[in-house]
């Protein structure tokens, strides 16, 4: 990549910071973006928190930027995002997610002792979210729709408090959207056995384009979450309908 190219990357990533609409040029690698964001943050006098810790299985694929909001399409993926900061000692809150399974959360590494659960956000979800954003590191939200104005205000508050929002379902103006694709379970066979392990591809979309994906054991036979090693597993061959993109973990 020549000098001109680098220049382009720099400008683009600045645009991505200030403009949520995204950019149309080739996406720079995630680490480069993080690095530049950190530099910009330092120039603007923001605390130089690079990012919140993420679960090792997601390392390098997505990092939770303080002040960011992330939309995911599966509950387990939301819990996996929570697990990183929670393991690190951050307080977490779950708002409006009446159906979350605590056992699954604990198994993924979410510390339930540092968890505030608000099953029903009530008549004024914006105030509930605002109050929690002030105090906890990560707020997970589900089944809540806010008017555009409140979303913008909440974003500003997230930025100020350096906390992260993880939304189950769609969320307007999300910094990144994470999807679980091509899930394949192993275990049950004609009534025998039970669900044992799952493979799924986590796909990260920023600004309308897929910027990365990774095939994960989610969970593996040993109930860990880890990237699938190179080479297709037996399960995948058995259940895959159509080609999937293989991304080095």
């Amino acid at each position, binding site marked *: 990549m020549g000098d001109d190219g680098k220049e382009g990357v720099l400008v683009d990533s600045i645009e991505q910071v200030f403009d949520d609409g995204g950019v149309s040029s080739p996406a720079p690698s995630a680490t480069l973006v993080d690095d530049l964001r950190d530099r910009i943050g330092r120039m603007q006098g923001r605390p130089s928190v690079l990012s919140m810790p993420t679960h090792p299985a997601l390392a390098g694929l997505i990092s939770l930027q303080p002040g960011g909001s992330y939309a995911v399409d599966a509950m*387990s993926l939301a819990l996996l995002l929570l697990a990183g900061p929670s393991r690190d000692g951050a*307080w977490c809150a779950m708002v409006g997610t009446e159906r979350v*399974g605590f*056992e699954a959360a604990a198994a993924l590494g979410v510390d339930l002792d*540092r968890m505030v*659960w608000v099953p029903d956000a*009530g008549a004024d979800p914006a105030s509930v979210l605002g109050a929690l954003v002030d105090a906890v590191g990560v707020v997970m939200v589900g089944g809540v729709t806010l008017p555009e104005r409140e979303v913008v205000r909440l974003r500003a508050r997230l930025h100020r408090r350096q906390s992260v929002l993880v939304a189950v379902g769609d969320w307007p103006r999300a910094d990144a959207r994470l999807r679980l694709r091509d899930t394949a379970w192993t275990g*049950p066979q004609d009534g025998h056995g039970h669900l044992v392990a799952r493979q799924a591809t986590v796909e990260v979309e920023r600004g309308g384009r897929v910027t990365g994906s990774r095939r994960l054991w989610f969970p593996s036979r040993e109930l860990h979450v880890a990237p699938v090693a190179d080479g297709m597993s037996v399960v995948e061959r058995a259940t895959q309908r159509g080609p999937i993109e293989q991304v080095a973990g």
Partner: protein
Amino acid sequence: MRTMVAWVPDWPALVRQAEHAEAHRGGPAPVEALAVLEKGVVLACTPAARAQGVRRGMRRRDAQSRCPDLVVCDHRPEVDARAFEQVLTTLEELSPGVAPLRPGLCALNVPERYYGGEAEAAAVMAEQLVALGVWDVRFGIADGVFVAELAARQATAQDCLVVAPGGNVDFLRDLPVEVLDVPAPADASTPGLDLVTVLRRLGIRRVGEFAALPAPDVLARFGAQGALLHRWARGEEVRRISRRTPPPELVATVAFEPPLERSEAVVFSARQSVEDFVRGLDRAGLVCSTLRIEVDAEVAGDLRVSSRLWRHPRWFGSGDVLDRLRWQLSADPPGGPVVAVRCVPVEVEPLGEHAESLFGGGPDDQVERSVARVQALVGPEGVRSVGVQGGRAPADRRLSAAWGERPVVARPVDRPWPGSVPAPAPATVFTDPAPAQVVGAEGLPVSVSGRGGLSGRPTRFRAAADLAWQPVAAWAGPWPVDEHWWDEAAARRVARFQVVGVDGSAWLMVVENGRWWTEARYD
């Protein structure tokens, strides 16, 4: 919460000195050395008397021998309270929410934003009080009234000692244990908590040494009140179990029939009810640190209610409440015969701390504060702490309790739960199972016989009414569960299945009496 305490040392002596000066206006030189005596010992004295060796707690004869021209007066707390009214009014103009602790001492919120800092606010207040003629006023600012009062006692005249936020432990460490003096219990039958004497005998002289004692031992030896002081000494913020107003049955009301004219009679008649009030709080496991006393009086045929907020650096005993009532009646005369007196606890603190043992250490203040804000929005039951317990259905394995309350573990997690679904656990658990449909090859619903036999292989299913039908890719089960077979009303015979659709979604379903329900989703 940041709290400021303003302290005017020797307030009774200052009041009597001013009285003397007023009475002998234009006469001989004003009295310099003056002492106020209570029960024959010096309670307060002027700086001039102190300079000649008069000390608090000295007997009359000793004091007079040290300072021959000492003027001695008897203590009249009503007069002190009335005179202190002026100071309270002055401070109230500068900051709302001034609550007297006793004559000469009051607590207020720190209006730091307006004056540009905590010390600056204190300086403005000192200036105003000096203009009023109160020369010696000292301020202390800290987290909570208890430490703020101690800080004020260490400040110099017209100055302010600020204990930094979170600095309570460092501040308390080297103070003598005498600062932990507590009011006598309301109930004469329970033995008094003579904490200070016992600690002295144990060779513990500093608050820091007391704080280093293990908490369970302090609780065992000194009871709940001692444990509360121990938490203060360790700088642990007392968790408000909930911000709900104390229950109305804790409010003490004394009605006088016929109405009483004299304040002494009011205080005397209220004694029994006030003792019951403090005992009632104690039974509820609470101590009251902020109290509102309301006095209803009949003035020219109308009912006039005067109410006032009182705070206490630690908590109110029954004698303290009666003192406050007496001071309030003299500072703010009812103007007519008193019909009723009410004691309303405004802020109570729990003596015990229940949630700590299960959920580890108390959360930091910020979380606690924002939880309180959320509780105000969705109700106290709407904010919950979570955990895992035992059970067969995924919904049974969830444990939650209202924030700050002790969750009741109905089913220990470490027992074997035969018939429960093996790990991994589902990430989505339906609180109310959703009606589902599972059919076999012929399109007939699949059913399970009493012996666990299937009527057919499941081929197509619909996990919820709003989802589309899809073919079954894989399935496991049935796991029959015969729950509560010994109890006819609660007995359930169900069988669980795991069903995986061709789209990769996996579900936990249960069939009961031929009907299918979705209990959880492995998403």
